[in-house]
């Protein structure tokens, strides 16, 4: 069994209203040392693939087809083998 950890973040230049709203809230709450915050998504997937290569291929494919909106987002992932 494999575990994929997937991070999805905004491309630079794309407006991130969620990050903005959180940043404003933190400043109102006086967290002055937070200079920036960006909001993204995180997924953990367990895969029953036969090999690490296959698990990686599947992970890439689901990122491209479903999890990330490539118009606006980029993704990064790692795959590791875990006990069944």
């Amino acid at each position, binding site marked *: 069994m494999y575990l994929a950890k997937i991070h999805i973040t905004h491309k630079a230049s794309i407006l991130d*209203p*969620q990050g903005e*709203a*959180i940043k*404003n809230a933190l400043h*109102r709450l006086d967290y002055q040392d937070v200079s920036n915050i960006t909001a993204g998504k995180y997924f953990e997937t367990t895969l029953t693939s036969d090999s690490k290569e296959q698990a990686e291929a599947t992970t890439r494919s689901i990122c491209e087809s479903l999890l990330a909106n490539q118009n606006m987002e980029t993704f990064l992932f790692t795959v590791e083998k875990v006990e069944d």
Partner: protein
Amino acid sequence: MKFAVISFPGSNCDYDMYYAIKDALQEEVEMISCDETSLDGFDAALIPGGFSYGDYLRSGAIAKFANIIPALIEFANANKPVLGVCNGFQILTEIGLLPGALQHNKSMSFISQIEPLTVVNNETLFTNLYKKGQHINIPIAHGEGNYYCDDAQLAELKSNNQIVFTYDNNPNGSCADIAGITNQAGNVLGMMPHPERAVETILGSEEGLTLFQSILKSFKGELNRVN
């Protein structure tokens, strides 16, 4: 009786609530900003629906830091009526006046429709003019209305009679079909359906008005008891 409607940036049902009190219930009502710090002089506080601060992180999450919140908690602890509808319900759970949390609808999409509900508990200050077990139709409109709490909490809600409204055909995956609950003391009600959209026949239903009339009735009863 004097109502406060607490408006947050991004609230969009604040005026609906305001008009429900002013025009349909015909009682005194004032719109107050969440930047205020006091609820002095009010007999009931209403937290309307909408998308406070855009609801970008989690619905109600950012609203819990508004200036008015300590006053609201104090108001609730003084046993005065507090009603949160939709985003108002979400805010009440975020600030801990009500247990549990509201997750994404099971379908993951927004649902707007008229929803049949059952009045499970008609012994609250919000529901005393309904009959127990009465079926009412009230519109819902939410993306995150899937009520969640753990088993122990659910058992407690049941044994204290805190479940006030349930859905007849659970649209969003809420545990135990919960559409609305009160706190233990019974003076804080949170519900996803919008009673303020069902206060005139021309809008298709008056069955939400009964809720506001119940609040008024309890208030008057209380006044008589005190005098």
